[in-house]
C-alpha cells in the first residue's frame, strides 16, 4: 500500500471534521464510516452506519464527486468504496491553493480554480455554463452528463445521478478564512458568495440558484479586469492552468484506490511479459515484474498528467486555430474585441473546445508550488528577504519541469551510490543567474542582503565608507542586466554556501549563464527541513539542551549517557530528565543491553538513540492531533455564538449590522472574527508543517 494511504486514526478524525465542515453532516457520516471500517461496499456502508441506502447515496455522491473516495468497479458485481486520504486532507488547503493560484496566474484563474475545487471535477461545458449560462439549457441537464462523463459504470452511482445535480460544497470557513488571513485582497468574490449562499451543504437542488448568482455577478462587475469576460477568456485560463499542470483530465482509473490500481497494473504488467503457461520464476523474474509494474504505473499516470488538449477527438484544424488565436491574444497583451465576440458565442459549431472534457485539480503539481513557497519562507528566515526572493524565482523557473515533489514509483530504486557517481543533471533542472536576473522583478533591491563591499565590486563604482555606507549611494533599480546577473550570482552563492545547500553549483554553462548553472537537490533539502522541524519542536518544548541532544544523537548514532554528555559537554544530571521526557514524547529512544547473564540493570549498557523517520512520523501524528483540536475548538467557539451568527447572517441584517445589532453583539462578532482568524492561521501553519513532514519526500530509511 502506498505510503500516503497509510492513515493513522487521528488523520481519519481530522478528515472527518474537515468533510463535515465543508460538505455537511450527511457526507461526513458516510465518510467517517468509511474511515472507521475501511474499504466497503454500499451494503456494508448501510450495515455499519444505520443509514439507509437512500440516505447514503447522496452523501457518497458528494464524496465521489470531490474525489474524496476511490471506488472500484473492477469486479463487475460489486463496487467498493475507499477513502482517498490525500485528497481528503487537502480540503484544508483550498484557501492556500487559491492564494498561490492568484499569485501565479492572476485572479481570474484563481476564480476558475476555486470553482473546480468546489465542484470536485468539472465538465468543461458545466464550467462554461456556470459563467455564461445559455438561456435555453437548464443547468440540471448537464449534471447527468457530468458524472456520466467520467465513465463510471457503477449502477449505484448512476441511480443517484439524476438527483445529485451540482454539488455546491460551500467553501465554508476554511477557504474563506484563508482568504481572510491572507489579506482581504485575496478574498475571492465567488468563493465568498458561494459560502454565503451555498449553505445547503450536500444538498442537490442548488444548481440553478448558483448559476443565477454568478450570472448576476458577471453583469454587475463588467469591465473589471479581474472578471472573466468571455468564454474565450475562460478557455484561455483553463488552457494556461492545464499547461502549467495545475489542472488535469479526469480519467476513470483515477477513481481506483492505490491497492486496486496496483492490482490492475500488476496484472497488465504480467500479461505484457508472461503468459499463463509460462509463469515468472525466481527472484529475477519477480524483480522484472516489479519494475515493469512501476514503469507502467508511471506511464498511466504520466498520461493523465499530459496537459489536457482541447478538442483532440473532433476537429484537428480548429485546434490549430485556437492555438494561433491564443498566441495573437498574448501578443496583443489583451483580448481583442473580435475574439470576445467569437468566443462569446457558445454555439458548438464555432466553439473549438471539447465540451465533454472533465477536468480536475492536480494536487501533485500544486504540491510542488507549495514546496516552493515553503522553501522560500524558510530561506527568508535564514538568509533574508531578498535572497529568498531570488530563490523563489529560481524555484519557479524549475517548477515548470517538476511534475511532483518526489517519484513514488522510482525505477530503479535509487541507489545513493549511483546518484553520487553519475551526477548528470538534465538541462531542464538547471537554472542560471542570468535566467533569474531576467525573471525577477526590477523592483527588488538586489543589494539587500549582500555585503556592501561586494555590491560595490559588482557595480564597479562608489565606495564603502566607514560604517559600511555606500558613498555615493547607488540606485538598485537602474542596474544593468549584467550587473543584476552578477548580483543574483552573489545571492545564489549565499544559497549554495549555506549548510542546507539550497542550491548546488553544476556547471559553468557558457557565457550566457552568468556565473554558472545551478541545480536544487530537493531531496536533501527536504530531509534537512524535516530534521529542522523536529528540532524546532524539541526547541519549543525542551529548549536548547533538547535540540543539542537530538543533534548529538543524529550525528553520533547510539550513545550511552556518558558519551552523550561528552559530546554535549554537559553533565549527566543535565540530560537525564530531558532524555526521559523526550523518550516519553517519542522523539528519542532508549535501549538496554544486558551485559551479564542475570541482566542486572545496573550493569547493563543504556543507550540513547534517535531515528529521524520515527520522530518524523511521531511529529506528523501529533500535528494532525493538534489540528483536530484546533478545528474542535473552532466549532466550540462558533457554537457559543451560534445564535448571534444566525442573526448576523439574516438578509435584513447583512449590511445593516449597526442598525440591528446591539453594541455587545457587535463586540462579540468582532471578537469571534479575531478568534476565528487566530485559529485558522494556526491551522494553516500546522498544515505547512504537515507538507514539510509528509509531502516533500517519501519514507526515509532509518539512519
Amino acid at each position, binding site marked *: 500500500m502506498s505510503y500516503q494511504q497509510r492513515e493513522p486514526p487521528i488523520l481519519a478524525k481530522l478528515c472527518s471534521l474537515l468533510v463535515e465542515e465543508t460538505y455537511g453532516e450527511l457526507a461526513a457520516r458516510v465518510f467517517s464510516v468509511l474511515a472507521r471500517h475501511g474499504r466497503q461496499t454500499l451494503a456494508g456502508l448501510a450495515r455499519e452506519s444505520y443509514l439507509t441506502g437512500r440516505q447514503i447515496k447522496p452523501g457518497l455522491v458528494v464524496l465521489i464527486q470531490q474525489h474524496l473516495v476511490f471506488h472500484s468497479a473492477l469486479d463487475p458485481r460489486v463496487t467498493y468504496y475507499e477513502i482517498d486520504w490525500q485528497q481528503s486532507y487537502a480540503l484544508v488547503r483550498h484557501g492556500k491553493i487559491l492564494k498561490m493560484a492568484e*499569485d501565479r496566474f492572476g485572479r481570474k484563474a484563481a476564480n476558475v480554480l476555486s470553482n473546480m475545487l468546489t465542484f470536485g471535477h468539472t465538465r468543461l461545458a458545466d464550467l462554461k455554463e456556470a459563467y455564461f449560462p445559455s438561456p435555453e439549457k437548464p443547468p440540471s441537464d448537464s449534471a447527468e452528463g457530468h458524472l456520466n462523463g467520467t465513465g463510471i459504470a457503477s449502477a449505484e452511482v448512476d441511480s443517484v445521478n439524476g438527483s445529485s445535480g451540482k454539488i455546491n460544497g460551500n467553501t465554508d470557513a476554511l477557504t474563506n478564512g484563508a482568504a481572510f488571513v491572507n489579506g482581504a485582497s485575496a478574498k475571492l468574490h465567488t468563493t465568498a458568495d458561494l459560502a454565503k449562499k451555498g449553505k445547503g451543504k450536500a444538498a442537490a437542488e442548488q444548481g440553478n440558484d448558483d448559476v443565477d448568482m454568478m450570472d448576476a455577478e458577471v453583469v454587475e462587475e463588467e469591465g473589471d479586469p479581474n472578471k472573466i469576460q468571455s468564454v474565450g477568456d475562460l478557455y484561455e485560463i483553463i488552457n494556461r492552468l492545464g*499547461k502549467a499542470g495545475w489542472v488535469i483530465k479526469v480519467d476513470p482509473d483515477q477513481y481506483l484506490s492505490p491497492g486496486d490500481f496496483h492490482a490492475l497494473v500488476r496484472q497488465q504488467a504480467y500479461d505484457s511479459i508472461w503468459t499463463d503457461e509460462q509463469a515468472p520464476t525466481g527472484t529475477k523474474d519477480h524483480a522484472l515484474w516489479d519494475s515493469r509494474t512501476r514503469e507502467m504505473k508511471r506511464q498511466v499516470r504520466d498520461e493523465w498528467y499530459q496537459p489536457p488538449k482541447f478538442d483532440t477527438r473532433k476537429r484537428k484544424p480548429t485546434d490549430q486555430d485556437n492555438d494561433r488565436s491564443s498566441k495573437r491574444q498574448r501578443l496583443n497583451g489583451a483580448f481583442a474585441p473580435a475574439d470576445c465576440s467569437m468566443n462569446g458565442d457558445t454555439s458548438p459549431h464555432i466553439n473549438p473546445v471539447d465540451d465533454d472534457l472533465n477536468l480536475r485539480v492536480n494536487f501533485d503539481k500544486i504540491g510542488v508550488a507549495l514546496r516552493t513557497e515553503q522553501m522560500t519562507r524558510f530561506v527568508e528566515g535564514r538568509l533574508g528577504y531578498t535572497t529568498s526572493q531570488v530563490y523563489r524565482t529560481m524555484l519557479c523557473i524549475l517548477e515548470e519541469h517538476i511534475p511532483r515533489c518526489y517519484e513514488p514509483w522510482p525505477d530503479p530504486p535509487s541507489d545513493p551510490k549511483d546518484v553520487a557517481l553519475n551526477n548528470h543533471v538534465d538541462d531542464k533542472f538547471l537554472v542560471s543567474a542570468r535566467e533569474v536576473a531576467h525573471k525577477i522583478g526590477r523592483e*527588488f533591491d538586489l543589494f539587500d542582503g549582500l555585503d556592501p563591499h561586494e555590491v560595490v565590486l559588482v557595480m564597479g563604482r562608489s565606495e564603502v565608507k566607514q560604517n559600511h555606507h555606500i558613498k555615493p549611494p547607488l540606485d538598485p533599480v537602474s542596474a544593468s542586466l549584467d550587473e543584476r546577473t552578477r548580483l543574483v550570482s552573489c545571492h545564489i552563492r549565499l544559497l549554495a554556501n549555506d549548510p542546507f545547500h539550497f542550491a548546488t553549483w553544476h556547471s559553468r554553462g557558457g557565457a550566457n549563464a552568468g556565473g554558472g548553472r545551478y541545480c536544487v537537490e530537493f531531496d536533501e533539502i527536504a530531509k534537512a527541513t524535516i530534521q529542522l522541524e523536529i528540532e524546532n519542536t524539541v526547541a519549543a518544548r525542551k529548549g536548547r539542551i533538547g535540540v543539542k541532544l537530538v543533534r548529538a544523537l543524529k550525528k553520533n548514532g547510539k550513545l550511552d549517557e*556518558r558519551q552523550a554528555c561528552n559530546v*554535549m559537554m554537559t553533565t549527566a544530571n543535565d540530560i537525564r530528565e530531558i532524555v526521559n521526557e523526550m523518550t516519553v514524547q517519542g522523539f528519542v529512544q532508549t535501549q538496554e543491553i544486558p551485559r551479564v547473564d542475570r541482566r542486572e540493570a545496573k550493569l547493563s549498557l543504556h543507550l540513547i538513540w534517535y531515528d529521524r523517520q520515527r520522530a518524523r512520523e511521531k511529529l506528523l501524528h501529533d500535528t494532525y492531533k493538534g489540528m483536530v483540536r484546533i478545528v474542535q475548538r473552532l466549532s466550540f467557539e462558533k457554537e457559543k455564538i451560534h445564535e448571534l451568527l444566525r442573526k448576523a447572517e439574516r438578509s435584513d441584517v447583512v449590511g445593516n449590522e449597526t442598525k440591528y445589532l446591539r453594541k455587545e453583539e457587535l463586540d462579540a462578532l468582532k471578537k469571534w472574527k479575531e478568534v476565528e482568524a487566530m485559529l485558522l492561521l494556526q491551522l494553516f501553519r500546522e498544515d505547512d508543517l504537515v507538507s514539510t513532514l509528509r509531502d516533500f519526500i517519501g519514507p526515509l530509511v532509518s539512519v
Partner: protein
Amino acid sequence: MASSNDGMPPAAEASSDTPAVKAELPSNERPSPAPNVPVPAAQPAPRPHDAKRAELLYEKCAEAPAGTLFFQRDLSNMDVAENMGELVNLIQELSDRHMMKLLTFENEACWKIRTRQEAESLRLMTGDERLIYQMIDAEQTRGVWSQSVRARTGQTIGAINKILKGLETKGLVQSVLSVKHPNRRMYLLKHLRPAEDIAGGPWQTDGEFDQALIEVVSKLVEQEIRRQTCIEVPAGYNAYTPEDRVEAIARKKARLQAVQDIEDAPAIKPYRPPRQHGRSNYVYKSSRTYPTPETICEFVTNKNVIKDRTITAEDVDQLLDMMVLEGRLEKVSGLGYRVPLALLERGSYNGFVDAPCGICPVFDICADDGEISARTCVYFGEWLQTESELIL
C-alpha cells in the same frame, strides 16, 4: 600541560605522550636488575662504603635536571663505581632504598631518581602498599584502575581498596573518575595532572565539564566568529532615494505586466521595503575564508581566559562541534564555521508548537470530548482570551 608539573621535566613524566619510555613493572621481589646488565652470580652484601658511594652516585644524578633518564653508560661515566659489577651493586643499593627506579627506553634499561622525600615514604610502606604504589607510579598520568591492580596482584578488592585509601590519605596518590569509562576510578600520583583520557580536556575539572568556563569561552568564540563572518549593515547604508522612486516602480511594473507572456514564470510578489527603517541588518561577509579550529585556537589562547592550561586545536574543535549542536554556529565548506543569521531573535518555531497543543503538558491524555478536551481547554482559553467550558 607537562610544563605545569611540579618540577618534573616533560620527557619522562609525560609518558603518555612519549610512550617510548616504559616503566618496568615491579615484581613482588626486589626490583630486578636490567636485563642486559650482567649480574654477578653471587651478590655480595653491600659494604658500608658502598652506601656512601651510592649516595655520591645519587647526588651526581640529582645534579642533572630533574627527571633525566640515565642509561648505564651515563652512570658509569659518572666515575663513581670502580667497575661494572660495583656499579650494579650501587644501583641495586639505590633501588632498594627507593631512590632510583628502573625504566626502559626503546628496549634499553635506564634509570631515574626519586626525590628523597618520595623514597622515604616508600621506605615506610608495607610491601603491598609499595607494590601498588609502584604500579601507580609506572602508569604515570594515565593512572591505574583498581580492578587492574587486583588482576595483577591477585589480592581481594577489599584489601586493595584499603591500601589505595591509605595511600590517598597519606597524600601520595589521587583518584579521579575516568571520562572514558565513567565508572572507573583511576589512581595516579598526587603531583601529576591526569591525562586527557581520564580527566578530559581543558574543559573539564575533576572529570566534570566546567560549565562556567565553557560558557565564557563559547561566548567569546561566538562573538569572534560573528565579527569575522558577518557585518552589520546600518539601515540607511545605501541612501539612494530618487524623488520619483515610487512612480518609477509603478511605471516599470506596469510595463512588465503589459508584456508578461502567459507562459512566463509566475508574477513576483509586489515590492516590499527590504528593511525595516532604523534597523540594521546582519549580512554575511563576502570573503570566502572562514575561521577554522586552528585560527580560533590561536584567538582563544591569546585571550588568556584559560588559566594554566594550554588548549589545542582539537580542544577547540570539540568546543566548536558542541556549539554547532547548540545551533550557535554552523559548519560551512568543510572546516570553516560561521554564525547563523537566523539566530538573532526568534519568536516562533513551527505551526504545531506555536499553538497551545504543541507544548501542552496533557497533550497525550487530551481527548475528543470529556474532561480534558478542546472545549474545556484552559490553554486555548488563555490564548484566545475566551471562555472554556467548565468541567463539572
